[in-house]
């Protein structure tokens, strides 16, 4: 496929790997923020092409992984109610809540449906006016415009039987949380390309300056990732910390303005709790006052839920780049994709699941 195959070319990848080896004189630790990049790095063995003194650590950019346990419990509670059609992206269905997951709700008679787009959920609401249709609005900035559009269209068309369970998180505050942790070892970032396709990359200038870290906007194919790593190391070796865009075919400096406008129409920035990390100020989206009636938490009375996470699972440390999956005693033993203890083992984009699949 055009715009995919050429970026998987072996010769090009080896060329970048050689170039990286040539410029690297010291050990460096770089974090790729996005779970999609983590998956590609482990799948294609990109980390194995790098000099031994370059360490890639895997960031918190997997929305499935960082959605807090109580939100999964809220989803399960709502999906279990009679008359509800609960719609979700497929990868949320197997995330373990405190007691069970959404697939278990489905297998015991709940109407849980996997959708490809939030607009599919709006359509289901239109077709089922006597049922309550709830969409699990999970994601980073990449997914926010589409989820916002679902709320906008439901409002415009007066669809009263539609609501959203919102679990939206933002990348820049999470990067700041990683950098300001006393355990931090990240020296440079590959910024998430598709988040930047929506938001642009001007937000990162202040972070690069404040923490003196290079931030390179990076794509998702092997050669994209290798170029991002190359540019990041080039900056580290020179001692500079700038924002660079190595994914210019898809990302412009200011991002996508119509998409940002739709986000601002429906969402406002709020504090959010991240699974394994805790609460981060200004790190997520909630519905604005105008869209409050579409909030599933208030509609179904689940706003006050709290839940405690498993003490055994170290996914929080993995999401912050402090530990790797192999450091966990439960990895591949008590914790597998079939029986995950924590969210990094559930999603394809979680570091533990990627290591389990490609590195055992």
């Amino acid at each position, binding site marked *: 496929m055009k715009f995919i195959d050429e970026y998987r070319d072996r010769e090009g990848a080896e060329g970048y790997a050689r170039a990286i080896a040539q410029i690297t004189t010291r050990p460096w630790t770089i974090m790729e923020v996005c779970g999609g990049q983590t998956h590609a790095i482990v799948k294609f063995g990109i980390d194995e092409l790098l000099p031994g003194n370059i360490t890639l650590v895997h960031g918190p950019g997997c929305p499935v992984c960082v959605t807090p346990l109580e939100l999964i419990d809220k989803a399960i509670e709502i999906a279990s109610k009679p008359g509800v059609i609960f719609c979700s992206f497929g990868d949320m269905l197997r995330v373990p809540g405190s007691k069970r997951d959404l697939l278990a709700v489905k297998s015991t008679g709940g109407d849980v449906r996997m959708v*490809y787009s939030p607009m599919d959920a709006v359509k289901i609401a239109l077709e089922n006016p006597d049922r309550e249709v709830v969409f699990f609005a999970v994601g980073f900035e990449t997914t926010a415009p589409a989820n916002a559009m679902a709320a906008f269209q439901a409002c415009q068309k007066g669809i009263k039987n539609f609501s959203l369970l919102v679990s939206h998180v933002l990348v820049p505050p999470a990067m700041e949380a990683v950098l300001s942790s006393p355990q931090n070892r990240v020296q440079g970032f590959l910024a998430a390309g598709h988040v930047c396709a929506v938001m642009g990359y001007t937000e990162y200038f202040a972070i690069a300056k404040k923490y003196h870290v290079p931030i390179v906007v990076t794509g998702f194919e092997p050669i994209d990732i290798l170029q991002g790593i190359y540019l990041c190391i080039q900056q580290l070796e020179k001692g500079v910390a700038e924002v660079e865009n190595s994914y210019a075919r898809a990302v412009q400096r200011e991002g996508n303005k119509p998409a940002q406008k739709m986000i601002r129409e429906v969402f406002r920035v709020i504090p959010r709790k991240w699974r394994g990390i805790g609460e981060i100020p200004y790190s997520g989206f909630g519905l604005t006052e105008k869209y409050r009636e579409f909030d599933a938490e208030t509609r179904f009375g689940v706003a006050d839920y709290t839940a405690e996470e498993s003490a055994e699972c170290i996914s929080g440390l993995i999401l912050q780049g402090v530990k790797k999956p192999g450091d966990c005693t439960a990895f591949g033993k008590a914790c597998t994709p079939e029986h995950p203890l924590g969210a990094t083992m559930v999603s394809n984009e979680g570091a533990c699941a990627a290591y389990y699949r490609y590195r055992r």
Partner: protein
Amino acid sequence: MCLAVPGKILSVVGEDPLERMARVSFGGIVKEVNLAFTPEAVPGNYVIVHVGFALNILDEAEANQVFDYLRQMDELGELQEQAPASP
């Protein structure tokens, strides 16, 4: 989750800018894609698509940048190897 796949716009329908829809081919598999966030997209453009929405039009002029950069590095590397050793 932030997976976005490039595809080629085959045709566009709809007048309302928030409900313009395209038929987009992903290597032969055709899907309906919402163009609300890429109002300037026309048939023939490649767009990156995420959960049923086009996020951006791919910039074909920038698409080779990653390879041009590599080629330039290669050429510089060769130049360095051929240069006589400094005294």
